[in-house]
């Protein structure tokens, strides 16, 4: 039966049909839905879990593969930085059951802090990398990836991009194959990567790359479409779809479904038939550099960009010199950036941090939106966990000058992911730093996934919950306290007191995400126009439900969830139930 599916959903279907039985992932846009959809299949067939981070997820998949099962992990591009350590050596050990790592890049940075190109990891780790261009290929390439993994004894990277992961197109569902668990045989030379064993394995890795390059010359993943045109386009992934839409039959295509290793003869033969060959690839010049290295002259980044996403118009303009006409609205339009939701428990913390003029070492999650006006209460955001270790470095760098006026803020899931190691460093090296854990009981930004701190597993079943207070104490933090972030007076007192202490400290701001179904909302508040003096104090918290009406402040009754934060700011008692 044919169904409209997200690319991510189609990958999940592919995993099911391939008989994959162990999936471990950490959520990250745009990869999250792969594991979510996979967890909807029967768990006795396809076991799924959220791991604390991508390194753990990848190592779990490595272990499952060595055990003889087909295994999988999914992550966003920056997640592969975290999982790079196991990847580079799993390339040497190879697999027993097939193993695939899906990594979703985010050209255009819809939801990311950088725009890195994961193909470099495939090249660096010397593993094959497949890149689908629509949902059908997401499923088909997932199945092929397992065949390649087992045939060539290697982990395989399935590279997605936001537009492939989050676009829906038709997919044919087939019956899953029963995958018989492979035997596990102890094999020290294959799986124990001491220098003596790894030296021998590296030889095999180089031989494998040569064999895979040979495979790339004639495999069904790499397709030539000859229209008889003298323009040639070498492309892969979503750019193939853009190119087809822009150029149709005006070009010949070499569509590369396998982007590492790249073929040599196939490219040379294709280029020989065309007058001009364009390489169309988002982000880095991986295919282009390869073409030049084998002596094929192509047009690439001198006409296209390293930045952001490409679209059909990008290609139409460069190659055909054509543009679409359109009518603009005659006035400037206010931007509508994402904001902390009405009732968001992070808001109170950022309001107080701004009020106290505290330097804030930030992290990755919904709460990064605390950096936006009017709160603007964040100084740095780099990567998962960097708030905690970065604050430590900042305090050491300023030789203690900022110890009483700088904090780190990090969400519960991010803290578990890689904040806890930074906290150990703070305790161990006594940097007198204050860390605020924003515990909203969920992994929020990626769309509400359970995590090791909230007591539920991926299936919503009860699970062990990390005791954050006990954990902080166990690593050597003596001053640990819990505060309700919606109680502004309590937050202010806690931040002031902990910053004043001559020792490292942890504040846990605990209140569940306002969007959780289990959170009961109160009726919306209203402005009493007779009492309101239009001082706009309530507007300083940046709540999307509070806006300037015709004559005074109004509260949007469809958005307000009755959290009451604004009532604590009104000196005139004008905000009423």
């Amino acid at each position, binding site marked *: 039966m044919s169904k409209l599916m997200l690319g991510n959903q189609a990958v999940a279907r592919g995993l099911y049909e391939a008989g994959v039985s162990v999936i471990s992932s950490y959520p990250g846009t745009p990869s999250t839905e792969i594991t979510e959809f996979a967890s909807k299949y029967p768990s006795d067939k396809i076991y799924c879990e959220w791991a604390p981070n991508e390194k753990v997820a990848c190592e779990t998949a490595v272990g499952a593969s060595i055990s003889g099962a087909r295994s999988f992990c999914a992550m966003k591009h920056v997640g592969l930085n975290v999982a790079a350590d196991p990847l580079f050596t799993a390339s040497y050990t190879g697999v027993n059951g097939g193993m695939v790592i899906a990594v979703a890049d985010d050209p255009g940075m*819809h939801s990311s802090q950088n725009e890195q190109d994961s193909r470099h990891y495939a090249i660096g780790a010397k593993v094959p990398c497949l890149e689908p261009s629509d949902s059908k290929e997401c499923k088909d390439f997932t199945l092929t990836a397992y065949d390649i993994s087992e045939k060539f004894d290697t982990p395989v990277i399935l590279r997605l991009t936001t537009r492939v992961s989050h676009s829906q197109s*038709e997919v044919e569902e087939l019956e899953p194959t029963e995958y018989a668990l492979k035997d596990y045989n102890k094999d020290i030379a294959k799986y124990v990567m001491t220098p003596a064993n790894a030296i021998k394995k590296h030889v095999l890795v180089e031989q494998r790359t040569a064999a895979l390059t040979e495979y790339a010359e004639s495999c069904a993943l790499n397709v030539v479409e000859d229209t008889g045109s003298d323009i040639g386009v070498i492309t892969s992934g979503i750019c193939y779809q853009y190119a087809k839409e822009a150029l149709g039959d005006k070009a010949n295509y070499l569509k590369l479904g396998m982007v590492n290793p790249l073929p040599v003869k196939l490219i040379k033969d294709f280029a020989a038939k065309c007058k001009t060959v364009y390489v169309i690839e988002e982000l880095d010049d991986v295919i282009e550099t390869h073409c030049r290295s084998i002596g094929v002259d192509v047009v690439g980044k001198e006409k296209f960009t390293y930045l952001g996403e490409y679209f059909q118009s990008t290609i139409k303009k460069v190659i055909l010199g054509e543009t679409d006409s359109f009518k603009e609205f005659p006035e400037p339009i206010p931007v509508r950036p994402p904001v902390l939701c009405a009732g968001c428990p992070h808001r109170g913390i950022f309001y107080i941090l701004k009020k106290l003029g505290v330097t804030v070492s930030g992290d990755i999650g919904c709460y990064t939106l605390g950096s936006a006006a009017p709160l603007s209460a964040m100084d740095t955001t780099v990567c998962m966990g960097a708030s905690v270790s970065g604050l430590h470095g900042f305090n050491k760098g300023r030789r203690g000058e900022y110890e009483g006026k700088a904090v780190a803020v990090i969400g519960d899931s991010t803290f578990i992911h890689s904040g806890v190691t930074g906290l150990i460093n703070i305790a161990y090296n006594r940097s007198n730093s204050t860390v605020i854990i924003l515990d909203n009981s969920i992994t929020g930004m990626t769309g509400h996934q359970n995590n090791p701190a909230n007591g539920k597993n991926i299936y919503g079943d009860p699970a062990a919950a990390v005791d954050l207070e006990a954990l902080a104490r166990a690593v050597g933090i003596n001053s640990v306290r819990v505060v309700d972030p919606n109680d502004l007076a309590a937050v202010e007192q806690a931040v002031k007191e902990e910053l004043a202490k001559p020792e490292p400290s942890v504040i846990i701001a605990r209140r569940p995400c306002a969007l959780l179904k289990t959170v009961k909302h109160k009726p919306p508040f209203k402005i009493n126009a007779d009492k309101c003096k239009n001082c706009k104090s309530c507007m300083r918290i940046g709540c999307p439900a509070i806006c300037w009406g015709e004559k005074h402040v109004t509260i949007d009754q469809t958005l307000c969830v009755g959290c009451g934060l604004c009532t604590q700011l009104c000196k005139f008692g004008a905000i009423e139930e």
Partner: protein
Amino acid sequence: MNKAIMIVGVGGQGTLLASRILGNVLISSGKQVKVSEVHGMSQRGGSVVTYIKYGDEVYSPVIEKGQADIIISFELLEAARWMSYLKEGGELITNTQRISPMPVITGAQSYPENIEDKIRAAGVKLTAVDALAAAEKAGSSRSVNVVLMGVLSKLHNDFDKELWEKAVEQCVPTKVLEINQKAFALGRELV
């Protein structure tokens, strides 16, 4: 001939469900369909857009400036923002609901006046409806998305009403189905 439809609005307004309903209608009518959505950061009260393209053979899932046949906007300012994505002769359908973006809330910028008139003056065919009032009448302000699908189904009767009703039934959670069926019917009465 391929057709390109955009659904635009503010994160949290239920544009994804609307695109699912439309996608469902299109696929059950035997078209090739591609739908492109935005998840994650952009959903938190930001400007959101979903692209729906269908026809005999669809390649790119994305719609760009000057390429859309129809835009359905869940909010007035978003109608103005995305207007330039219409092709010559394209149609804009908008909800008249206003949701202030943060620069308006903080007073850094103001919400443009007379948006509807300005869109029409620019030569765009515009249908404006109060979908919020209809949604509230149906029983929930959250059913604005389904009201607007009702409007679309009436204005563009390429597909049977029954196909739409079946799609609503398949895409909406059972708990709120009745409200949404009412919302769909009220949407059809708005135009």
